[in-house]
């Protein structure tokens, strides 16, 4: 048995403890300097010792003997399931953050590089990119330690399950470890080489950033293969024995949908956390300059999150589609069985995300001269999003008491039942996405007026595209009531998604050239946004973190009493899948723990940075140029 692969399940990205001098934000705007130092020798040693401890434990004959005999062990006081659940979820949160943020950090760095480092705007983007990477850097070691703890818990509490999984996936675990090392070194080079690879070598630096993201994505894909195999195992015969190839096990039904879904969700998560961090700094800022800087950072974080959020439901739909394709029973259990209420809670959370993101954009328009002309639109946009929210949160196929059934006049409400079905919900969410995109478009042009001759035609084409897309979504939604489920699922829903995506592409294809060289009606007054907008950013960060916990419960819960669905049954005392209330309490607890840890490491970073700033004040780098004005899209 390949238990010697213990290190392969360890931390996702980096073996590194906190670099006390490499984060914090009081010197924002300063490019990373050559004074940034790496971790101390002791700090470097700790992760290595962790791996060594794992290897020693697993190599101990007595341990190995016991491992063969025990299927389960109990974690004291709280039980094995809760212990694994909490640690896995917090590890996942950190991992999502450190995988998601670098994706948009490198894009921002690329933008700064293309604009030109000799221009103020280019340098600002470069600073922001570095700031984002700095945030993830502080979270690396925590992610690694949590990954190590999770591995130990799995091996010690669920030894037979671990033996089974490692028996199939051992080579991928070795690959995971190798990728992990490569990615660590690449990110180190990316972060510490910021000054060294500047000027004419900036392109190489950006390429290293891209490479670190590719490696991070590969790590994500490898670890996803283990999780998705548990949901939709492939290569298993009727007796439950694995007879397939490794590639069959990896490339199972839900692997690629989960890959894509997590990749996008990580970007949303990274964006919301970065924006939440900026909001926190904004609220505590002492100077206008600081406020302006964190206002801008929060805006970019939210913009990134919102952009990815708009396509996330499509990826989620694909994942659900594949789960149904793999096993109807599982799909039906997920959507119409004991987990049906979970999707109502999910709808509420996503509704909050859409409402919050739009509200933030509308508040942001208050600091843009010229945006007043779009203010009358907002109430209609709010109406569409609120209606969409209500439709999406309308339940169906839920257990009702006899009294409730009598009150409704049947098992379904005679009127609301039409909104509880999939065709109505798909229509609602597509309209919400269209509306959000429209909000963004208004924000984008808030202080600009096009000067091209074809501006009027372009605008008309854009509005016509919106109207046509909305009509297509509504028409297909209505048609969905009158066709077989298979037609609705395989044709109508993808067509609705296609209409929305096509609309976004066409409108942006017109918008970008139309506003090139546009006349400005005034510069954005960064830092003057209402403070309540920053609470919206915090609301988004908390809500998305909570949503991640909920979706983690859904992904795990649909297996019910199976470790590996239909193959390896959970026969431990924890085999019961808890009700939503209990799950919600655990999710809240993990979310609180996650934010406490995040605040702690950011606070530590702030301590280190204070010393760093003091050093700079005595002959260090000059203070950053203040952010003022700029284009609406920053």
């Amino acid at each position, binding site marked *: 048995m390949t238990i010697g692969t213990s290190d392969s399940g360890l931390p996702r990205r980096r073996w590194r403890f906190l670099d006390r001098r490499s984060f914090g934000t009081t010197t924002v705007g300063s490019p990373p300097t050559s004074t940034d130092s790496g971790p101390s020798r002791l700090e470097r040693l700790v992760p290595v010792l962790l791996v060594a401890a794992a290897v020693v434990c697993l190599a101990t004959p007595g341990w190995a003997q016991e491992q063969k005999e025990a299927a389960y062990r109990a974690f004291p006081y709280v039980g094995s399931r809760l212990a694994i659940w909490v640690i896995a979820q917090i590890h996942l949160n950190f991992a999502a953050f450190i995988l998601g943020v670098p994706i948009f950090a490198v894009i921002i760095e690329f933008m700064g590089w293309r604009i030109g480092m000799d221009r103020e705007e280019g340098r600002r983007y470069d600073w922001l990119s570095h700031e984002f990477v700095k945030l993830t850097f502080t979270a690396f070691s925590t992610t690694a330690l949590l990954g190590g703890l999770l591995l130990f818990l799995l091996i010690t509490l669920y030894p037979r399950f671990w033996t089974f999984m490692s028996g199939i996936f051992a080579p991928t675990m070795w690959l995971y470890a190798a990728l992990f090392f490569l990615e660590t070194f690449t990110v180190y080079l990316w972060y510490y080489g910021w000054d060294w690879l500047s000027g004419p070598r900036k392109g190489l630096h950006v390429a290293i950033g891209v490479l670190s993201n590719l490696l991070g994505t590969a790590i994500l894909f490898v670890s996803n293969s283990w999780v998705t195999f548990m949901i939709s195992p492939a290569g298993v015969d009727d007796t439950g*024995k694995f007879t397939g190839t490794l590639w069959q096990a990896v490339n199972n039904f839900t692997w690629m949908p989960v890959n894509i879904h997590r990749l996008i969700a990580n970007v949303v998560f990274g964006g919301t956390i970065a924006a939440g961090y900026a909001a926190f700094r904004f609220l505590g800022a002492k100077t206008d300059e600081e406020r302006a800087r964190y206002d801008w950072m929060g805006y970019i974080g939210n913009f990134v999150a919102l952009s990815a959020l708009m396509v996330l439901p499509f990826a989620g739909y694909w994942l659900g589609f594949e789960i149904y394709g793999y096993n109807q029973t599982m799909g039906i259990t997920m959507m119409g069985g004991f987990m049906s209420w979970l999707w109502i809670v999910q709808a509420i959370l996503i509704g909050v995300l859409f409402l919050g993101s739009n509200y933030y954009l509308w508040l942001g328009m208050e600091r843009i001269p010229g945006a007043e002309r779009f203010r009358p639109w907002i109430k209609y946009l709010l109406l569409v999003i609120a209606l969409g929210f209500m439709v999406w949160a309308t339940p169906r196929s839920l257990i009702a008491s006899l009294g409730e059934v009598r009150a409704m006049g049947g098992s379904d409400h005679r009127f609301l039942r039409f909104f509880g079905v999939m065709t109505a919900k798909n229509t609602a969410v597509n309209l919400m996405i269209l509306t959000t995109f429209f909000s963004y478009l208004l924000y984008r042009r808030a202080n600009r007026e096009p000067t091209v001759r074809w501006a009027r035609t372009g605008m008309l084409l854009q509005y016509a595209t919106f109207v046509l897309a909305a009509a297509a979504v509504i028409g297909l939604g209505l048609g969905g009531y009158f066709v077989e489920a298979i037609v609705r699922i395989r044709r109508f829903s993808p067509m609705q998604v296609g209409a929305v995506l096509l609309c976004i592409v066409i409108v942006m294809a017109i918008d970008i050239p139309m506003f090139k060289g546009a006349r400005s009606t005034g510069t954005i007054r960064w830092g003057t946004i209402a403070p309540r907008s920053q609470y919206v950013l915090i609301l988004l960060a908390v809500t998305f973190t909570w949503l991640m916990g909920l979706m983690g419960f859904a992904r795990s819960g649909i297996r019910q009493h199976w470790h590996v669905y239909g193959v390896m049954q959970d026969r431990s005392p924890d085999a019961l899948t808890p009700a939503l209330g209990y799950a919600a309490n655990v999710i809240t607890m993990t979310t609180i723990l996650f934010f406490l840890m995040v605040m702690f490491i950011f606070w530590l970073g702030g301590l280190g940075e204070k010393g760093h700033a003091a050093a700079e004040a005595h002959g260090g780098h000059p203070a950053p140029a203040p952010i003022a004005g700029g284009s609406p899209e920053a």
Partner: protein
Amino acid sequence: MAVPVTVKVSAFALAVMGSYSWYANSIPQIESKPPEELSLEGGNVTPAQLVAAGEKIFREKGQCTTCHGIGRAGRGPDLAGVGARAGTRKPGTKASAYLVESLLNPSAYVVEGFPNIMPNVSKPPIGLNRSELWAVASFLESLGGTVDVKLDDVPQVATAQTGGGAATIELPGDPKAGQAIFTGKAACIACHKAGAIGASPVGPDLSNIAGSQTPEYIMGKILDPASKGTVSGFPPNVMPKTFGQQLTAKEYLDLVSFLLTLKGGAAPAAAGQAAAKPKP
């Protein structure tokens, strides 16, 4: 005095999370419990008991209500009156045979207008055993028809392993010695029949216990009879709970090994070792 930003932000975040938790706790709380296994082998079960057991499986472990309604349409056909209809669906095929085959090979008779989505319910993840299939078929027959399905109408189903296949072990017991324990020290023979051995009607006939039950069930039943329930038609709490203390570890393994040889034959084959694949 100004409230620090950290306090304000923390209070706000806690309020947000608290509201989500509160809502999730205020809606119906439904748990998903691992299903229990039902054993009716060798029992004197009345049709009424069978139907009652079948309805419970239909609504719970079998997850049939996810797609089927009784008196209302669902993803699958409405099963009201299926007991009467089943005998007419295929000329020459009795209702019982039709229903059993529909459970084990659902694609054999797909009702027009419905997709071919039903799984074989004897396979994981639902994994009904022979007794449970018998009970469900009886319940379906009771929906407008006559309950006449027999256990023998349900073929021996290959119970799929649910231990991941990789965890195969052999029990180090001696079936021959186990037979001696069965008839001697443990005195199982006082209540149970095992092939040609014993004839007492006090407890269920164990002549086919290895064919109808998992090793885990058998082992658990000996050590803690109440944990596995009581076979329908027999009084509860009769089987002693003291075998765990009474038998040595070797005797226990021998006894289990002997019981695992009982696969429906007239006489137990008390030779050779029985291989068992316990579930984790």
